[in-house]
């Protein structure tokens, strides 16, 4: 796919990140059903594929997890021994906020593609690729830039389990509020 040309006024070190795979990381804990149940409960999702072992065994050869839980395995604990500062997921997104001086951010678009099903006991790894950064834009939230970050997820066997693409908007509010 052809990516748009990088915005001309971007710092060189930021331009250099475009297309570069970063943050090759492996989850700190294996996939477990508890988070599946949390997600299913939060959305009142009664799909028996995820609740009934016999249905899961019949259809997929065992329990799997909802594809929408893909990203959670790579999200760090809010706190961990020895860690300092806020632990965040999708670090490329937070790097861009800091480097471009855009204190606030939201996600505007998400694409989620499911491949090999994720199963309890899997250990997920991922990497992130910054695909593009827009020119400066102004929305109702403030002035900033949109960026697209792709994330590719694999299991412990190297099988591709999913790909996500996020569009984030980092911005500075029109009337900046200090925190």
């Amino acid at each position: 796919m052809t990516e748009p040309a990088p915005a001309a006024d971007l710092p060189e070190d930021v331009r250099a990140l475009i297309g570069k795979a970063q943050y090759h990381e492996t989850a700190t804990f294996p996939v477990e059903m508890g988070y599946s149940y949390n997600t299913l409960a939060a959305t009142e999702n009664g799909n028996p594929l995820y609740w009934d072992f016999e249905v899961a065994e019949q259809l997929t050869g065992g329990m799997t997890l909802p594809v929408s839980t893909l990203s959670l395995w790579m999200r760090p604990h809010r706190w961990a021994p020895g860690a300092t500062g806020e632990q965040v997921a999708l670090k490329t997104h937070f790097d861009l906020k800091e480097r471009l001086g855009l204190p606030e951010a939201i996600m505007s678009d998400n694409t989620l593609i499911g491949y090999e099903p994720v199963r309890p006991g899997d250990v997920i790894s991922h990497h992130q690729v910054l695909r593009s950064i827009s020119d400066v834009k102004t929305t109702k939230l403030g002035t900033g830039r949109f960026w697209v970050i792709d994330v590719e997820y694999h299991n412990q066997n190297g099988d591709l389990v999913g790909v996500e693409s996020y569009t984030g908007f980092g911005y500075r509010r029109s009337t900046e509020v200090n925190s």
Partner: protein
Amino acid sequence: MNPQTSAATGSPATSSAAMDNTGTDKIVLDQVSAGTVLPPLGYDVSATTVVLGALASRDWRPMHHDHKFATERNGTADIFLNTPNLAAWFERYITDWTGPKGRIGRLTFRIRDSVFPGDHMVFAGTVSGTEIDESGCGWASVDISVTAGDRLCCTCTARVALPTDGTDNPWTRRSEDWKP
């Protein structure tokens, strides 16, 4: 009255009772075509809904649980549903319709406005097309909207695999036979 419609408001009823997805052979590809309308799903969003969804997806960012942060720092009206939880709601909406043999290949959604506590969010979907790919997998493309009152909050396009007949099972497809 449509059993999925609230008698009091005429809008889609709340909660999981709106749809039942316990059958494994709920829909096969032949039963759907462009224009097929999915049953709507309405849900009353509370602060608990937002926080449950954020924590379930291990999203600890404060705009999804801290009203003061969301309003004073982010400039939003309230805490709001986070992106992975929205994906989970789309997943629930789609598989409520397909049953467990439905296998989501791809979800692409745009968040046009946030979903806040106090909103009655309504999912509505229409099949835009069907196909059988070269490996024999049956697919339906579905356009979905999420509204809250007169606000269009999200639009989504989903590509979901459906069994082509009573013996087919999209979950058996692997590697080159799975083209999401």
